[in-house]
């Protein structure tokens, strides 16, 4: 069974984060378009794999969303967390720290964190921090 939830960042309290009693696709009050910082994320669980798709700018102000989605897929018992960077326009060390926390949690289960749709600049930042050796990077590196 696949569950797909969207949580928007609009500065409001993160109601709906991690709630399981709501139907597919209905968590949160807004999508990516209504966020002042232009950040949001979606997540779903495919068997033992949690898939998190990031959108917009993931920084110190908006990283709570990523943490919430990580907590959510971990609560579903996944052993692998896949994070897509295809729609990310900016990320900073807060995002990287959240991914490191996710990795620590999932490695305890014998799993891993996979990053996908990484562009050339994102790969450069991962290399500068040495995190390219920590995460599995899946697929082709995009030019931009």
């Amino acid at each position, binding site marked *: 069974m696949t569950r797909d939830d969207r949580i928007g960042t609009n*500065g409001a309290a993160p109601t709906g984060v991690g709630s399981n009693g709501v139907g597919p696709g209905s968590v949160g009050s807004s999508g990516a378009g209504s966020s*002042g*910082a*232009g950040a949001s994320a979606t997540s779903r669980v495919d068997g033992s794999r949690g898939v998190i798709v990031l959108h917009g*700018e993931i*920084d*110190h*102000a908006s990283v709570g969303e990523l943490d919430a989605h990580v907590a959510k897929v971990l609560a579903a018992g996944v052993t692998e967390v896949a994070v897509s960077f295809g729609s990310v326009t*900016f990320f*900073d*060390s*807060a995002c*990287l*720290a959240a991914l*490191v926390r996710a990795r620590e949690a999932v490695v305890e289960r014998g799993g891993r964190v996979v990053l996908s749709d990484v562009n050339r*600049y994102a790969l*450069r*930042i991962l*290399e*500068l*921090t040495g995190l390219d050796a920590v995460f599995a990077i899946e697929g082709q590196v995009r030019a931009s």
Partner: protein
Amino acid sequence: MRRGDGRPGTATDSGRAATNGHGDGGHTAVTNGRAWRTDPVTRVELRLDAAVENLPLLRLVAGDLAMRRDHDLDTISDVQMAVDEAAAALLEVIVGSDTLCCRFEAAPDAVRVSLEAWSAAPAGPDQDSLGWRLLTALVDVVRVSVTAAAGGGHRVCVEFTRTPAGSEAP
């Protein structure tokens, strides 16, 4: 994405050099009867709430200034990330302050950023953090100062300079 120089500035007396208020003798050039500012350095100063919600604003300003001075895309991205990390590190450490003062200076050969806030605590940013390691890898020079403020407390300042060839790009 690059933009050329010669963006229109505030009109001044045509044909005469005009001061730009920074003591380094700004210049204007006249084309088609209009004065165009040709200063080699663009300066912006912002005073804003000391909150991480303002990081996108700082990135926007830093990126725009670097773009105006025709820096390459990696330099623009690096300056945006550097100002984000420097400000986040400063916001993390200041105590009892609600205002952040930011000065940006963009020249063709370098972008300089200074971030300053008052703090009740005499402590600078955590230089062992992931964000700080990223900051120092992205720019040429980072300086931190913690000095006594007039009237009590401390001024905590983080400054950095980034030149086009200044990153540790692999």
